[in-house]
């Protein structure tokens, strides 16, 4: 008996000792992540947003569109499929998920909410311009998308907004941004952390107006005063090439321009120059800026055209566009002038002609060239929509805006490949929704599940 009691005593003491050691050992602070901060200042997030947006705009958002617009041709691996419009939900996953919604757009939304709270109006205004730019880019490609219900904590299945409602909100957001950018006081203001304008709020204001004009123009077929809104806005828009809204890249490997990475490093010769674009430029002084013919034989047509399997020599984009530190242009002065030209065409053809001539000059000047007189001598009588869009198409090389212009105007006049895989064998009219929305937001996605890339978005009226 004595022995048993002793055993129980030893057992009890041991358990108590063990229990106390457990409690001391479990330090719950160990689960505070030492690798990642819970809070950072605006100046550490703005560069991320701008660089991230620029990377997508010059990368995943541009390449498939530039193939469809026949500025490029897909000749190897997956881009062969893009060339014949075999472009599926998984092809847009990266850009939607990491590239935009959970990337710069989430950071923009958090900045907008926070800057409103602490009266950092200047960061607020910049964030609103960039948010409007991002949302517009997405809705123009995808149609209806989650917006008003997106980026809200604990809401994992945001509702979709109609493109019309989104456009209404974007105009308001841009107007609001202009007000905020011009507030005299702001708790924090951007400076060198702003990769695009180094904190120059005047340039941001001009960018806001130019963006407003760009968006208004998109609605030409669905909004009666669209041209007027565009003309009113563009009056306060960009006034020179030095105001172009562009994201800078660097020569360090982690700072390389997305096109450089794609064409020169990671995916060489999967994409080459498209025959249509090369032919368009053949007698243009900008030919050697846009097209690098090294390695392409003279007697063969440059570019592939949209017919895979032709084993011609190839032409490559020029170094201006695919160097390590080539900037990615989001919006330019030249674009502003072409917007003005198009908006004024029906009401004031003389203004349209002047704006066009200025646009062409700006586009040439951007590469240190003077435009030939033949390209800058349009008059009220000679100016046409086809000319405006064609020059805009050249000036906005690799910019997804060309696809929007094509859908609105039908210019340039592109011939789809005979083996196109769209159901109507014509050029696509939008992007497919990504796998992630289909799978993880299925209830809200229900109305969109049968949409194909041949279906038109709201502003894209026949």
């Amino acid at each position: 008996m004595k022995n048993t009691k002793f055993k129980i005593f030893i057992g009890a003491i041991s358990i108590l000792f063990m229990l106390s050691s457990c409690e001391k050992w479990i330090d719950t602070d160990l689960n505070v992540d030492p690798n990642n901060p819970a809070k950072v200042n605006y100046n550490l997030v703005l560069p991320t947003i701008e660089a991230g947006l620029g990377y997508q705009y010059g990368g995943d958002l541009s390449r498939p569109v530039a193939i469809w617009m026949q500025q490029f041709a897909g000749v190897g691996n997956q881009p062969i499929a893009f060339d014949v419009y075999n472009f599926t939900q998984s092809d847009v996953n990266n850009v939607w998920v990491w590239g935009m919604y959970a990337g710069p757009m989430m950071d923009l939304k958090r900045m907008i909410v926070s800057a409103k709270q602490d009266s950092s109006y200047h960061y607020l205004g910049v964030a609103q311009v960039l948010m409007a730019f991002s949302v517009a880019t997405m809705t123009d490609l995808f149609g209806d998308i989650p917006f008003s219900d997106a980026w809200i904590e604990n809401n994992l299945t945001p509702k979709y907004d109609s493109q019309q409602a989104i456009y209404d909100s974007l105009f308001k957001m841009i107007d609001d941004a202009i007000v905020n950018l011009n507030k005299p006081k702001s708790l924090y203001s951007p400076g060198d952390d702003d990769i695009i304008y180094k904190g120059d709020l005047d340039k941001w204001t001009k960018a806001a107006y130019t963006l407003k004009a760009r968006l208004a123009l998109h609605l030409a077929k669905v909004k009666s005063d669209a041209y007027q809104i565009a003309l009113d806005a563009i009056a306060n828009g960009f006034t020179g090439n030095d105001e172009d809204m562009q994201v800078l890249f660097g020569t360090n490997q982690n700072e390389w321009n997305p096109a450089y990475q794609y064409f020169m490093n990671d995916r060489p010769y999967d994409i080459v120059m498209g025959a249509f674009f090369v032919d368009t430029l053949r007698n243009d002084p900008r030919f050697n800026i846009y097209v690098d013919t090294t390695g392409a034989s003279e007697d063969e047509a440059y570019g592939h055209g949209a017919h895979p399997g032709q084993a011609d020599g190839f032409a490559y984009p020029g170094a201006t566009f695919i160097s390590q530190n080539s900037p990615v242009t989001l919006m330019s002065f030249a674009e502003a002038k072409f917007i003005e030209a198009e908006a004024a065409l029906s009401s004031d053809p003389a203004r349209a002609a002047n704006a066009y001539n200025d646009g062409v000059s700006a586009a040439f000047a951007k590469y240190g060239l003077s435009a030939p007189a033949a390209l800058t001598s349009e008059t009220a009588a000679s100016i046409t929509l086809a000319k405006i869009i064609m020059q805009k198409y050249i000036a906005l090389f690799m910019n997804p805006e060309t696809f929007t212009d094509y859908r609105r105007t039908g210019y340039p006049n592109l011939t789809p490949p005979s083996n196109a895989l769209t159901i109507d064998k014509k050029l696509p009219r939008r992007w497919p929704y990504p796998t992630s929305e289909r799978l993880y937001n299925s209830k809200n996605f229900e109305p969109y599940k049968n949409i194909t890339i041949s279906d038109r978005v709201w502003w894209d009226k026949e």
Partner: protein
Amino acid sequence: MKKLTLLMAFLHAFAFTMLSQEVQVKGRVTSAEDGSALPGASVVVKGTNTATVTDPEGNYSIRVPAGATTLVVSFIGMKTQEVEIAGQTTINIAMQPEVIGMEEVVVTALGISKERKTIGYAVQDVKSEDLTRVPNLNMINSLNGRVAGLQVTSASGVAGSSSYITIRGANSITGNNQPLFVVDGIPIDNSMNASGNPDNGSNNLLEGVAYSNRAIDLNPEDIESVTVLKGGAASALYGIRAANGVIIITTKKGKASKEGFGTIDVSSSVAFDQVNKLPELQNKFVQGQGGKYLGPETRNRYSWGPKADTMYWDGSTNNKYDKHGFLVGASDPNAKIKFTPYDNLNNFFQTGITYNNSVSFSGGNENSSFYANLTNLSTTGIVPKNTFDKTSIKISGETKVSQKITIEGSANYIKSGGNRIQQGSNLSGVMLGLLRTPISFDNSNGYSDPANTPEAYMFPDGTPRSYRGQLPDGSAIYDNPYWTVNKNKFKDDVDRLIGYVGFKYNIVQGVNISYKLGTDYTSDKRFGYFAKYSGANGAGQIQKDNHNTHIINSDLILTITSKISDDINYNLLVGNNLYQEKYEQSYIEGNGIAQVDFYHLSNVSSYVIRQNIQKFRTAALYANADFSYKSFLNLTLTGREEWSTTLPKGNNAFFFPSASMSIVFTELEGLKNNPTLSFAKLRASIAKTANDAPVYYTSSTYAQANYGDGWTAGISFPYLGLTGYSWGNTAGNPNLKPEFTQSIEGGIDVRLIKNRVGFSFTYFRNKSTDLILTVPVAASSGYVEVAMNAASMENKGVEITADVDIIKSQDLRWNLGVNYSKINNKVLSLAEGVENVFLGGFEGAQVRAVKGYSYGSLFGTVFVKDAKGNIVIDSRPTVNGEPNENYGYPMMSDKEEAFGSTLPDWTAGINTTLSFRGFSLYALLDIRQGGVMWNGTRGALVSFGMAKETEDRGTQTIFKGKLAKLEGGEFVYDGNGNIITEGDNNIQVVKGESWYNGLGGGFAGPSEQFTEKINWIRLREVSVSYSIPQSLLKGSFVKGITLTASGKNLWLKTSYKGIDPETNLMGAYNAQGIDYFNMPNTRSYVFGVKFSF
């Protein structure tokens, strides 16, 4: 065995009476087989803790208290005997060899030795000879085919590559699914850490080199036995890290020898490795497109050029890509030398050689034992320049400092690592460049030893020579494999220390306290580079990547042994475990190599630096109670209360119990010593086990910013001199709670005809609930994934093992063993609205966990099908008035389908041992049925025109499928959106380049074409060994010599159209079943010799 004796000694603790009179008993313990002395045998007075050990001559002497009736004598490998004292003072004991089967003792959770016959759950062990007979670089591979319910997949046959192991299937969705490895009571690290910029996450496993899982560091020579704890009841005592079962490794301990000095074993082996299977390539068409030859200078990637037998070299001397001149057609006036195809593939691989040398010392006396081993292994792989080396030094010992206190300790230092080779989806990957090389390009440039001849892969100006020419900056597009093995190096250098110190204190009779403090510290220093002009990195890149893992484990255990009555014994154990794991990675990437061929971090133009620290702790109180009634009815109850720092306060403590019981019918009086039914046991168990969360899942944070786009490496911060953060893509969850798995298991074990035939059957079902994972969410929420207790999953299955001693005589023994297992896994639920979770893979072929499907199902793109699943053939001759180029061809669907599980339907192993005197023959046949693999290699090679099947290019074919029904020239759809078909396809079309490079290929076409079922039968091991008879060695100082010749993978039968399908690109990772330019596997021939002194 010693532990068992001690345990038995305690059984009669209560019956112990006070000392009155003592009697001295002495005698000699010998082997009944040959009469030799057995030194170190344990002699215990039953019911007391009076014990002694025999001296080198086998003699013992023990004081027997009055009233004691029995001596218990035990020795490893011999059957424990109980001898009545009955007044004798000299008792000589002849020990019988242990009968293989149920009498033996197995090591179970926490190192508790149990008699196999009493255990209430399935337990299987692997002996040391199985681990060393055919030496495997990675000891995990030695478990392959031997244990039912255990699945092992080696990543490839390259030296140092990893192996993935699961027991009874996967229990976690995105977390670890591999078992816990416990060496002598210390949990050790078996992780596989990838290199490359950590921003790329698991994509680093699709490219880069093959990494090792850290169990590769274990030295098979040190291992005495491996016990596999499969079910919840078996592993419950280990707590959260044992949620996927446990591999318990018991290392060799020192043994007293006859001469009292010790035994020295020296073993040495050499192995020759060869590639065992390669994809079939075409050798009829040269580089180019559209039937036109396009040489390296055009950078053309394809082999859609003209027929090889129409080609000639022009004999000119100015083609830097080929010494025979330029290739021209037969009609060309310069045609001079008839072209003959180059065989790049078969010329590339070499015979790998592995040398394995080991010396061990084992010795001891009655108070102490000591073991030491030094092993060195050195491998050169089948790929030139691939090496792996491992040196292991281990010492362990145990000594009694007093009658009551024993201290023990062990230290094992391992140095391992090698030169690893770029592989997979990586423009510098060996197989990618090698398999894509057209037959008209000679990677070796005519040199007989191209791997050691720079002129083979490099031009005089230092730029690379490869079949796709160069980019304008001089860099390669795809690397010549000889360039990559010479110029893109990657080395790892691991220093690891696994060790423990411990003591055992016998407080009072029947009460013991033991304590063990163990550590596993691994420093893995890696250094690699891509030379300037390399395919994957034309500017050049240097990587310095250090991984440090440090585990500390403390176990304090109190055991109480006693009995309730003469028939009912019990054994109580209470323990405390404290555990800490710290992992730190420091990654420095230098980009843009300035001075070529100088690889130092100073010699670059920019840096990317990443730091990742993870630290967590757990604490636990646990208890185990064993009750036994006459060995007939046995019951074990366990419970564990665990705390973890990775769960939020309030949810971070949790309890999980288990119960197991067995009924041993042959212990019943009427059935004892039955000549036919030697043994029969029914067993059943139920358990609940738990798991905690990965670190830092409870809150959301910012993260160092980086952006990629799926095709390019992307950008990262610091950027243009600016620091940048982005809100994390994963939402943390402050309400996480632990995961639980409920498991039940039942089975029978039967042995017949004097133990000669054995059969064992087990059924199990594990159901895991509240599984923690980061659930993918719609990115429009702002997050990519959210940490949640989301999923539930079930594994159920059967395991059958059988063995029979077909012949069992003094000289000749022939034994046959079979194991079979079938596991059905089903993902029962994922988070609400989530149908599937991505585990790994590529855009078109992804391994996922999908609700309602088996874990690890392969998903991918498909052809358009009708409602019945027939492929729909485009029957529209024209579309919009234009001729339809797709007329007569299948069409690509925008849907995705599940192709099946990457896990096998069932697996089986058949082994046989035939021994005659000193000869022994062993063979292991391994059978796998079912499961799918994505043969992305074949898909790419079809697109490139290099796959054998593209040799039929240009032939007419009628695709199998149904014709789409047309109305007014348009498709007709049914209510579900499926195209309606009518009749079999009868349209004859050309199967040519545009088909193969389009929908018939791996890049533009559906991945279902390249998803293949995996079945195999392989002769995994065969070995012949011969031990030189003792009689020949008598009088010499050599105690034994054994010669072995063995082979691995000597024969393989499979329908898989690529390399050996036992492969996985991502290595020891949850996403299995991916083959994208994987390295091949090997067949080996091994010759070994072992001396004992």
